[in-house]
């Protein structure tokens, strides 16, 4: 993969800033307690949270890349997949079968969406397609809860939850987060292999590059859309299982979509590595800022800080880290 030098410079500058600023604040302010091992611990914790954001952001990127749709229903898909998974599990179905069945359900959802919603709206403006995914979100939220109920359900997938200590107890890392990061890494690797080395994957990339050209060489666009929404559904399933394992499966899972938005701006809407790197930067950035800069203003800055970071960043690089360069012609 070719990476522009300016991208690396930008990332480097952000890393330096994110380290130097807390250090400086720690020197001048009494409210802020700065120590290198603790800083490292916060940064690592943030990076691991960032992976969890990336998981959600990936679903957005996949669909946007292949069909230009900003899929507002991604959060609802996460909830729907997690509800179906845990619902089946509570019926006594073994875990592996739950996964396969839920994957089947998500494929059905993808096919239904393509047939009933996307096909009649081919070639509409992006904002219309965005709005229509909101309709999909309402339907999925209602349907999932009507079938499976709105009660919170516990989901224990057997990952260890205890903290681990490193460097004589100076640095603490949560094992669940580490495993989650590993699973996310495996998922990304699988996606990369799928995109690079399979026929369908190549077709997907072709569609992403140019709809018209892809159609003219005989790639069936509608088939591709089904595939891409299915893959996004599977990503939603994995995200739903990981987040559900953390928070319990409940309606609030649909709200994690908001956490993915700053990741998308930073990483660019069309880049899978962008979603990963963007997630890492947002995760680490918001934790470091909340812990080391938050005390100056009374805390709770985590939410908007990610967006501010993205905003400042966008002013210098309007297409995101890995977004395609915007070339405009009259």
């Amino acid at each position: 993969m070719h990476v522009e030098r300016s991208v690396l410079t930008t990332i480097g500058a952000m890393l330096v800033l994110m380290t130097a600023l807390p250090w400086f604040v720690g020197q001048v302010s009494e409210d802020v307690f700065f120590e290198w091992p603790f800083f490292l611990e916060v940064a690592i914790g943030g990076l691991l949270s960032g992976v969890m954001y990336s998981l959600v952001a990936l679903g957005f990127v996949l669909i946007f890349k292949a069909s230009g749709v900003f899929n507002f229903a991604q959060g609802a898909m996460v909830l729907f997949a997690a509800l179906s998974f845990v619902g089946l599990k509570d019926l006594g179905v073994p875990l592996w079968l739950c996964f396969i069945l839920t994957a089947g359900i998500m494929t059905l959802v993808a096919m239904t969406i393509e047939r009933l919603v996307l096909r009649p709206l081919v070639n509409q403006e992006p904002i219309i397609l965005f709005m229509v995914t909101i309709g999909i979100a309402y339907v999925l939220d209602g349907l999932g809860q009507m079938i499976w109920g709105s009660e919170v359900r516990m989901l224990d997938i057997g990952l260890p939850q205890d903290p681990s200590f490193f460097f004589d107890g100076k640095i603490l890392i949560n094992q669940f987060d580490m495993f989650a990061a590993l699973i996310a890494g495996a998922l990304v690797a699988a996606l990369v292999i799928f995109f690079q080395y399979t026929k369908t994957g190549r077709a997907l990339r072709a569609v992403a590059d140019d709809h018209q050209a892809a159609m003219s060489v005989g790639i069936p666009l509608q088939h591709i859309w089904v595939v891409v929404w299915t893959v996004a559904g599977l990503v939603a399933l994995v995200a739903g299982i990981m987040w559900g394992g953390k928070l319990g499966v409940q309606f609030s899972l649909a709200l994690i979509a908001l956490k993915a938005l700053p990741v998308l701006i930073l990483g660019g809407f069309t880049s899978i590595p962008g979603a990963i790197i963007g997630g890492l930067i947002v995760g680490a950035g918001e934790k470091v800022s909340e812990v080391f800069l938050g005390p100056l203003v009374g805390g709770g800055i985590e939410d908007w800080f990610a967006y501010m970071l993205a905003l400042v960043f966008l002013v210098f690089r309007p297409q995101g880290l890995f977004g395609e360069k915007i070339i405009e012609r009259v």
Partner: protein
Amino acid sequence: MKLTTFALGLAAATLLGSSAVQAADAQFIGSTVYRTGPYAPGGIPWADGFADYVNLLSERDGGINGVPLELEECDTAYNTDKGVECYERLKDKGSTGMPAVMPLSTGITYALLDRVKADKIPLLTAGYGRADAADGTVFPYIFNPPATYWGGADVAIQYIASEFGGTENLKGKKIALVYHDSAYGKEPINTLKALAEQHGYKLSLFPVPHPGLEQKSTWLKIGRQLRPDYVIMYGWGVMNATAIKEAAAVNYPRDKFIGIWWTGNEQDVIPAGKAAIGYKALQFNAIGADFPVHQDIIKYLYENGKGSAKSPDIVGQAAYNRGLQQAVIVTEAIRAAMNIYGNAPVTGEQVAHALDSFDLNAERLKALGLEGLMEPIKLSCSDHQGGGHAQVTQWDGKTWQSITDWITPNEEMLRAMYEESAAAYAKEQGITPRSCD
């Protein structure tokens, strides 16, 4: 612009619908609940408890004092807009309108403050809403028995002090407050600050932005940096389970972690699994289904397939008993109003008047099969609060175990704070406090 006629037509249709004929001699009870939305897990058992108690009165006693009851639920999804709509839709139903409103959300409570005053309908907030509404001279139509957030904060500090062996040992201790960054979560801050001045502990504040899915940085600060002697939590919904899990993730001891009643539901600790064992929460009602009232509910409702909850296991859960308790307060207030005005459906104004001299004493509680489930409540024209007792419970992995007796908050200090805050509100709103003599 004129297509708004479309809207008008729609709305007109709505109007026709809402004026459906109701039984003339039944007492209407409207219940605004949330069985859907982000906070549904905690809202469902509450709504079940409320509905089951009202239905029990209908099935077992044929209503209140012989007047049949008619219960209607309206789903707010914990959304203020929807809550206001629910209130306006329900308020004129039945032959006498809604006798009282229980919004079950601090946000909706605030949105209804002016409306209930204009409509003369008492607003009951059990353990949420405006704490300073305890001052009945400024808030004639608002009642907040059995407990307030401020009282809860005081009880929590009393309990923590007893853990350290007395209030004098609080000096120099570090106490952290983790709170939902909204009107609800901010309520205890002033009380905790006042107590910090009194007792000399150091208070640190940790706001968690709504909805609270991510709290890693908060807990890194608490568990790895500040290491407070105790953590108090005012959270709601998914925030609670997340906080407990993150506390476990940074190895913060759960038995030094105490939450307000809205963080003490089974639905908050079960998703956290083993991590929640040892976590404590305040309750203003007892937990469990061992009370005579529960046996009646099982007998009259669940054995006849008339229960509201999906399974009888819900009966006796923390949130269920809280909803039940609210139903007890409302129905007893209606009964008190009927005792004054005669056994016919009563209006909101009559219920408000009855609430001004409301006395739910131990004897009455025993007759209702509620002995030990809740403490007696006595209200007056100026005191709309009536007690504020709470007890501490601890999660043992299966149930909430009561670990203290009922603790009474420092009424004297709180009363002064209520009156000060209510006076400020009265001044801003141009309200002349009514005389209670």
